[in-house]
């Protein structure tokens, strides 16, 4: 009897052991090392964090990052909602076709999509040509601005939003809408008072995901954004590549990590984390 209980308790841990050891050695330890570097490089103490709080440049970058992430999340919501709505209301064939498009975009490497925006917005690109045709001559410089990186991030992250919204919308019972209609509600108030609240979980899920991914976005802002208006992740990269300032970079990374975890925790408290990845 005793031997079976002992076996019963230790078996799952035996199965877990390789992975737990691996993640401890190659995930937790490097993470702890970042935390350590932030308080030991170049000298022990909280100098790096004090520096972050005092220097207006860092505050500006953090503020910039938050506002950009917020803006991207709002744009994804405003653009993603009509598309997800269209998918939910269309015939299965059309919905599947649109889903295929969203899926393809989702799976295409960030780098490929970033490069595509470089072509589109370049000085010899179609958008500039179109603007010139419309009489905006000389056309404004679009690449390497806040506009170009924000636009590309919206494009890259919108699949997350559409998938979150669609998975909620297709479960909305159409009978509820018909009931509201039969009770005399106008189409707009059916949408506003029945459909919109029912689709709210998808909006929250999508916006949280997009906001979180955007907070730590490195590739697109670095390649398409303005070097004068960096986001946090880009500045962390610069600190390491150009100045080898591991202390300052680690301190910024810890603040970025903490912000991400705060968003996750708030979401978890209100909605439960297991729903977010689903």
């Amino acid at each position, binding site marked *: 009897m005793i031997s079976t209980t002992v076996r019963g308790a230790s078996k799952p841990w035996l199965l877990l052991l*390789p992975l737990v050891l*691996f993640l401890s050695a190659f995930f937790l330890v490097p993470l702890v090392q970042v935390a350590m570097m932030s308080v030991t490089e170049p000298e022990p103490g909280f100098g790096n964090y004090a520096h972050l709080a005092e220097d207006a440049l860092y505050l500006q970058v953090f503020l910039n990052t938050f506002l950009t992430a917020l803006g991207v999340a709002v744009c994804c919501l405003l653009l993603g909602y009509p598309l997800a709505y269209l998918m939910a209301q269309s015939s299965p064939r059309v919905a599947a076709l649109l889903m295929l498009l969203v899926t393809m975009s989702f*799976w295409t490497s*960030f780098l*490929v999509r970033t490069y595509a925006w470089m072509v589109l917005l370049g000085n010899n690109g179609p958008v500039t040509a179109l603007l010139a045709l419309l009489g905006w001559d000389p056309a404004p410089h679009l690449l390497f601005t806040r506009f170009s990186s924000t636009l590309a991030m919206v494009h890259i992250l919108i699949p997350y939003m559409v998938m979150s919204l669609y998975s909620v919308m297709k479960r909305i019972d159409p009978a509820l809408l018909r009931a509201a209609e039969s009770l005399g509600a106008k189409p707009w108030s059916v949408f506003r008072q029945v459909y919109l609240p029912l689709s709210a979980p998808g909006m929250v899920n999508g916006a949280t995901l997009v906001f979180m991914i955007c907070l*730590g976005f490195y590739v697109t802002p670095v390649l398409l954004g303005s070097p004068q208006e960096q986001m946090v992740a880009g500045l962390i990269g610069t600190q390491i590549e150009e100045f080898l300032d591991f202390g300052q970079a680690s301190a910024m990374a810890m603040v970025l990590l903490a912000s991400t975890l705060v968003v996750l925790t708030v979401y978890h408290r209100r909605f439960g984390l297991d729903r977010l990845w689903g």
Partner: protein
Amino acid sequence: MRLLPRLIGILVAAFIAAPLLIVVPMSFSTAPSLEFPPPGYWLGYYAAYFTDERWTQPTVNSLVIAFGTMLLTMLLVTPATFAVVRHRFLGRGIANLMLTMPMAMPHIVLAIGYYSYLGDLRLTQTHAGVIIAHTALSVPVAFLILSANLKGFDRNLERAAMSLGATPLRTFWHVTLPVLRPGFAISALFAFIQSFDETVVALFISGRESETLPRKMFESIRVQADPVISVVSTLLFAAVVLVVLMPVLWKAARKRRSPTGPSAVARDAAGANAGTAPSDINPCAPSRVQLEA
């Protein structure tokens, strides 16, 4: 449904599609720099991609690293998933958290960690170093997919096998594994793609010796937008289209040939055996939700 919301929806779909499609004509362009529409068409940059070692070597590196990541991830995740799904034990919640945590990390944070930690271990600029880092990043996705599949597994199948005298190992090999094959396949595919696409960590740790394709692409976009980049982009996009369309084409092909062909019955039987083919699984389902950007 009224016209205006529908119109906006269609415009958004066009907004999603246009940038994906523009890379295709760019790859056949003769222009040495970014220019659209292309001044002329040729295959020169395709030839350049396939013959230039500065592009083929990173491609090979990426394939090797992604394959290694896939193997290591599946070896570690498979037993762990069985433990977490099938057993109730002290610390299960913590184990669950630990297995999904790498997902919530902004990659730039881990990139600094790996840069200094793997540097201490002399693993930067090696394939092994990148495989290790990518495996840590791929664990959550592989775990979530595999555990979703395992939760839906009917354990009576195993009980039946055991009651007929099969040993646990035989049962696992002949019953559990074949039934879960699609789950394993999708899980492994996600781990592979996760590694193949990962940019930020690879940028910091892969160095010249084990340079991955995304790192090479990033550098060449940053420095001078080498026209070969459009060839690589087109090939990557084509691969995505192929993988995403495969289940659809598979289904269509099966539907078309089964009622007419001469030995439709035999094919149907074969089809029934392959009943849980990957075609039943939505390729985008549990997402590559990682803060990989």
